[in-house]
């Protein structure tokens, strides 16, 4: 350090606000920015505060992973296990269905369609994202469920020997399978728009180079586009997963919520969803059950917070050109 001390450091050209009005201006902006921090903190504080009685009575581990929910029993038992697993199962089904659809649409928009069609398709996908979930729930319950039950029946008849497609009761309505498809419809636009953005920001020259070297569309997609865009795609998928976990009303109408845990029988008419369970039980809940529902909300919140933070970190990493 001492040897270089004669060298003049380059002066930093950022200036501090000196006028009083500017300090107020930047102060307001900072306060507003920190308000998002405050909101998240308040949510945590209040949910923890309200759910403490239930968590203390049930024990955190028992509450999260046990499998009984009975407000009439003495002592009351509130355990979230089947709902938590049900949420995860539905989200997995949703993501598995949504990912190929979303990547296809993104690929179609960016690399296949002529410009005018691509623009129209983008608008349509955005429109799909804007449909409120309760409208999708209504559609799912009265229009889509019978159709999807037909698909489930076909799956069961042709592939029923695989354990996950078995259904001895032959009742195909209100199953995790249908809820998963409805959730997939909700998260396709999320994954598609992020994937499309990543695709559109890719360096066209490496794609053209691959084509010029004799690669065709398929090998270019598999060996150039997908590896380059994988970070963003994974981030988008995780964001979709977060949305799927928190989906409330759309799932409520197409799923038979049952605390009889359903591990993998996706065609059977029982499943779980934390968010839908909260909204369906809230109306008739007594104070101690409300506390348990708060705890369920807390578990859901922490869960989605973790997934979303990882997702946004990955998406940000995948777009190093954005500062």
């Amino acid at each position: 350090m001492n040897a270089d001390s004669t060298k003049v450091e380059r002066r930093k050209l950022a200036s501090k606000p000196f006028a009083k009005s500017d300090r107020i201006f930047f102060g307001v902006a900072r306060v507003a920015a920190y308000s998002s921090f405050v909101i998240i903190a308040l949510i945590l504080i209040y949910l923890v505060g309200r759910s403490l009685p239930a968590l203390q009575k049930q024990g955190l581990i028992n509450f999260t992973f046990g499998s009984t929910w009975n407000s009439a029993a003495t002592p009351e038992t509130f355990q979230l296990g089947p709902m938590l697993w049900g949420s995860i199962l539905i989200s997995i089904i949703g993501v598995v269905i949504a990912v190929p659809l979303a990547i296809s649409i993104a690929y179609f928009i960016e690399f296949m369609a002529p410009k005018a069609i691509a623009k129209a398709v983008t608008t349509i996908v955005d429109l799909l994202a804007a449909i409120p979930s309760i409208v999708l729930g209504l559609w799912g319950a009265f229009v889509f469920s019978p159709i999807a039950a037909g698909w489930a029946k076909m799956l069961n008849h042709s592939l029923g020997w695989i354990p996950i497609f078995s259904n001895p009761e032959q009742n195909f309505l209100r199953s995790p399978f249908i809820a998963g498809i409805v959730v997939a419809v909700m998260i396709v636009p999320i994954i598609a728009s992020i994937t499309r953005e990543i695709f559109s920001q890719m360096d066209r020259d490496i794609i053209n180079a691959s084509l010029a070297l004799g690669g065709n569309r398929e090998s270019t997609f598999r060996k150039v586009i997908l590896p380059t865009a994988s970070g963003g795609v994974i981030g988008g998928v995780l964001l979709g997963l977060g949305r799927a976990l928190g989906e409330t009303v759309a799932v409520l109408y197409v799923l038979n919520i049952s605390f009889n845990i359903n591990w993998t029988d996706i065609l059977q008419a029982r499943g779980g969803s934390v968010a839908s369970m909260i909204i369906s039980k809230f109306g008739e809940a007594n104070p101690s059950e409300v506390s348990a529902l708060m705890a369920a909300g807390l578990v859901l919140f922490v869960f989605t917070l973790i997934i979303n933070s990882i997702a946004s970190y990955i998406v940000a990493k995948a777009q190093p050109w954005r500062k």
Partner: protein
Amino acid sequence: MEKVIDLTPVARPKTAQPWSKKSPKFLISAAAASIIPAAITLAFVGLAGMDFMAALIIVFLPIQVIAAALVGISIYGRRGILESLLVVATIFFSSFVFVLLGSVLWSVISNGAAAISPSFIFQNNYYIQPTTDLGYGGVGHAIVGSLLIVGLSTIITVPLGLATAVYLTETQGKSKGIIRTLLQAMAGLPSVVSGLFIYAMFIASGITTYAGWTGSLALIPLMLPTVARVTEESLRLVPAELRNGALALGAPAWRAFAQVTLPAAKSGIMTAVLLGVARVIGETAPLVLTTFAADRTNLNVFSGQMGSLPTYLFGYIAFGFDASIKRAWGAALVILIIVAILFISARLASRTRTKARK
């Protein structure tokens, strides 16, 4: 100094992309491969009376895949098989999404149109039973309630989101990364959790009973990320020269923002507000937990239960009678129309922006 080769598209003639030329042979065989399988499938459905779904899976897909593979082989040789599979899969999956969206829109519009009438839109739900026929009562109170609740949260959220975006774009703040991550995390907040939070904060603690304003508060965490992010994008699009020019002329930062940056980003901010409103206008779970429902028109957002379109829909689906389901479809159409209006205005606002900037 290293020699730089100019690779910009201007310097590169169109003929330098031999892979994008299409031979007539390719065009003819591609057309044949896309028409023949569909024709055979239609023949099966139309003439043999096959179930459409079954025909699609058993007849159409295999024939389409084989036809596309044949075209691929004739153009590229054996590696063309995978290429044609990619094309078929892309188009099939994309059209599947369009069919789903089309089904949603069509069922809401056709079922909803049957329920909608002037009385449905302007009357409220007082004295209406779930089985009352559609001649009486409607969603007037719910439209008013939705507008009031969402309006109040817009009034709170927009300044907050705007100031957050200012922090993210105009300042040298050190915690931009954290704030951005938090906003992303908030964007994924389950709506039911937001409702539980406000319920725990105001209603369970006895500060107030169910009221419109608690619903407005519950919508803020859902609306803020959208408004902040879109506003940030539009502020970022304002050229730095404008901003620096104002600063160089001696304007303090707040004046440079208010008189130069803000007008330049005006339409983008309009888009942000509209998209934010569209995001929350159909949110159901938080309102069910915080405003409950009401049958009468309530114009006071600060006291008394308040009906809103999503809670109306929520209630009427739950009743399960034929008449109540019809009302639910009608309310769904009203929500969808509001969302569409917001959405189209947002598009128009952002279009004027891009036009003005050219």
